[in-house]
């Protein structure tokens, strides 16, 4: 071979080796390349894998990011968008490459975008509107970073994009809901008040301010206590303490109106805590219940009147019986005395005369008096039940007396149906209102009676018991009626729930009873067994204040003789008063108050003036004020005799008179004692 041919062959050889190397490289059969500078092999696979892995990592991050990623070049032409960003805008990733910034950022936002990019501050965040492929707007928050080339010149930017639409919608929703709350707070018929930890008013709505006669701004910053009555302040103090312990509850209270009147309210309070759970004050919804309380008490009275009305027939019967006895006995005496004629008792032996007087005069007189006494009780009971709400004062009440009154009222309902068993244990007085407590007892007794069918009075029983049970006064009314089915026993205290036929009951009775009993701190419960009967149980707290016992009238021994003026439009009353007082005193009487006034004006002096209150021509009150003008001393000597049926005016008048008044009917001994007491 020639040297040239040799050289040529070598070259061909090298060339084919190079081709083979390239081919092997391309087909991935090469592991390492020898680096001529380091004079060592460089493992290709390792470097390739690492590069590929790192690329993959970045690609995954970019493509799975929740944020949109967008790069533009120096001319603001899109060079890349990740899938998230493209889909946000409604494009495919391929479609967006080459789109200018101006067709992606909304026109209004373009100047801002430009300045943001040029300011070259990395990580700058701003809100911007982008334009979707379909032309709609997309609110995003943009954080852009400029990209510089090797020479440090601006080469484009990378932006991270977060979709704000949801945030914005949530913010809008929040704003709307806040607006809604504000409207609710301002238009609600309930008052709303927020106080801080010291009880200073932080917020009141219009309604609460209105309730108390203020403007909201006049109340904010002031101590909440300054808008409450003393009772209200005590209630609030206790409530604030409970709020501090995280307790939400409701209570009745009284606020003070700007004009000084009381506003009865029902307050539902909640503690207010900050985001860390620290107690910062309380919030309360305040409902003005002045009107509803008034209606409620009216309802109670009308229910009471209704029961008295229902029982009227029975009560009339109750009055007629003793009244018949009174009349018959008086007739009998009149007859006996009329037949006396010549057979004057004087001709009898002293022993005979005594027996005669005892049997023919004293016994019928006693019977008549006893019967009259019963009528008096019944009328007093009626008066008790028909008291108006303004007279309903709370005080120590004797449970047994009230129960007796109620039993008398309901006797006609009871007696045809059951035997009445009374089992009175000794109990202290309770803090209640007589009329209302009577209403409760009456309801329970009438219910018990009506549960038992008429006819078998001796096989059925209604039992009333009173006893002291661990500091509480317990009153039970038990019947042997059919009992209350378990299905409905929970509803018996619901308003308008009744098992009686239409017209038989309003369904309010037990609901009202329940209200009355809970109002005075008691409990009304029921226990029943079908076929065996029902027990209603009232449990009441003992009265805190001792009952003031009325001192018994002491019949005076040889009292002073006085000069007494009697003024009453009822002739009958004048006659009996004159009869009782005439022997011990000098009595002047008149049926006309104007005549009495004339006597005083003429200078007549009286030690006492017994005066009726309700008279047609001139009332006792008018006479009192006229006499006061003439002689205040003489006016002080007036004692009023009343038959009840008060008006608000007469009631407050009587409470201003220093001397006690005498109630009709009166008994002779008591009347004498009172008169004698004031004469001394």
């Amino acid at each position, binding site marked *: 071979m020639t040297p040239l041919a040799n050289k040529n062959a070598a070259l061909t050889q090298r060339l084919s*080796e190079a081709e*083979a*190397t390239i*081919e*092997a*490289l391309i*087909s*991935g*059969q*090469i*592991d*390492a*390349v*020898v680096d*001529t500078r380091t*004079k*060592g*092999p460089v*493992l290709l*696979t390792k470097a390739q894998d690492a590069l590929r892995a790192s690329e993959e990592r970045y690609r995954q991050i970019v493509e799975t990011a929740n944020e949109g990623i967008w790069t533009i070049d120096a001319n603001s032409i899109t060079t890349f968008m990740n899938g998230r960003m493209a889909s946000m805008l409604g494009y495919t990733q391929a479609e967006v490459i080459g789109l200018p910034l101006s067709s992606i950022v909304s026109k209004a936002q373009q100047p801002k975008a430009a300045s943001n990019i040029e300011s070259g501050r990395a990580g700058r965040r701003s809100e911007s509107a982008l334009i979707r492929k379909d032309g709609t707007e997309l609110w995003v928050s943009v954080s852009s970073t400029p990209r510089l080339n090797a020479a440090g010149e601006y080469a484009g930017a990378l932006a991270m994009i977060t979709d704000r639409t949801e945030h914005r919608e949530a913010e809008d929703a929040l704003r709307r809901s806040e607006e809604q709350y504000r409207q609710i707070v301002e238009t609600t018929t309930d008052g709303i008040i927020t106080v801080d930890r010291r009880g200073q008013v932080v917020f009141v709505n219009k309604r609460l301010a209105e309730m108390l006669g203020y403007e909201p701004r006049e109340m904010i910053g002031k101590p909440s206590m300054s808008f409450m009555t003393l009772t209200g302040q005590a209630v609030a103090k206790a409530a604030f303490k409970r709020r501090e312990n995280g307790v939400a509850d409701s209570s009745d209270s009284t606020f003070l109106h700007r004009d000084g009147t009381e506003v009865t309210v029902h307050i539902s309070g909640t503690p207010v805590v900050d985001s860390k759970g620290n107690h910062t004050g309380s919030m309360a919804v305040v409902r003005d219940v002045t009107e509803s309380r008034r209606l409620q008490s009216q309802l109670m009275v009308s229910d009471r009147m209704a029961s008295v009305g229902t029982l009227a027939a029975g009560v009339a019967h109750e009055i007629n019986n003793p009244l018949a006895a009174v009349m018959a006995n008086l007739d009998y005496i009149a007859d006996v005395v009329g037949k006396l004629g010549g057979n004057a008792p004087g001709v009898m032996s002293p022993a005979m005369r005594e027996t005669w007087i005892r049997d023919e005069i004293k016994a019928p007189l006693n019977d008549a008096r006893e019967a009259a006494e019963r009528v008096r009780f019944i009328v007093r009971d009626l008066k008790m039940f028909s008291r108006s709400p303004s007279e309903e004062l709370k005080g120590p009440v004797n449970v047994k007396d009230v129960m007796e009154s109620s039993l008398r009222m309901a006797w006609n309902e009871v007696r045809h149906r059951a035997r009445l068993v009374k089992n009175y244990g000794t109990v202290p007085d309770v803090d209640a209102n007589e009329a209302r407590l009577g209403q409760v007892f009456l309801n329970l007794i009438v219910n018990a009676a009506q549960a038992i069918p008429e006819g078998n009075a001796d096989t059925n029983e209604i039992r009333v018991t009173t006893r002291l049970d661990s500091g509480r006064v317990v009153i039970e009314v038990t019947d042997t009626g059919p009992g209350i089915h378990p299905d409905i026993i929970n509803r018996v205290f619901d308003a308008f729930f009744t098992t009686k036929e239409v017209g038989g009951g309003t369904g309010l009775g037990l609901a009202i009873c329940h209200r009355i009993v809970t109002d005075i701190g008691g409990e009304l419960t029921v226990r029943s067994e079908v076929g065996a009967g029902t027990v209603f149980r009232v449990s009441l707290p003992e009265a805190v204040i001792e009952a003031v016992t009325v001192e018994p009238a002491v019949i005076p021994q040889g009292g002073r003789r006085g000069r007494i003026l009697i003024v009453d439009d009822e002739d009958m009353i004048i006659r009996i008063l004159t009869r009782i007082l005439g022997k011990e005193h000098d009595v002047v009487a008149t049926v006309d108050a104007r005549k009495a006034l004339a006597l005083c004006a003429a200078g007549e002096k009286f030690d006492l003036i017994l005066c009726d209150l309700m008279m047609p021509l001139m009332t006792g009150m008018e006479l009192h004020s006229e006499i006061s003008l003439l002689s205040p001393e003489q006016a002080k000597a007036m004692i009023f005799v009343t038959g009840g049926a008060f008006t608000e005016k007469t009631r407050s008048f009587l409470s201003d008179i220093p001397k006690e008044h005498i109630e009709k009917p009166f008994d002779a001994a008591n009347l004498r004692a009172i008169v004698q007491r004031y004469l001394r």
Partner: protein
Amino acid sequence: MKTIKAVHLRLYVAGHAPNSVLAIVNAKAFCEAHYLPGYKLEIVDLMDHPLRALEDGIVVTPTLVRLMPKPSRKVIGTLTDQRQVVLALGAG
């Protein structure tokens, strides 16, 4: 008498890189198939002897060099395609 031609092969590899391992396996199989009863297969790991590459003018791994019989020949790659190897090196 038939002269037995001496066959001397050298395979340059890079450690246990996959292509290198494959090349070793293929080279052994090729020799067993074509050069029996006698041949010499030398394996040089450039990771252990990096300088040998430059001395022998090796650029990439795996590379199989036929040192004997002359003229020397190179085959680059995993030696998976036996036909090409036969073409390059000639069979026995």
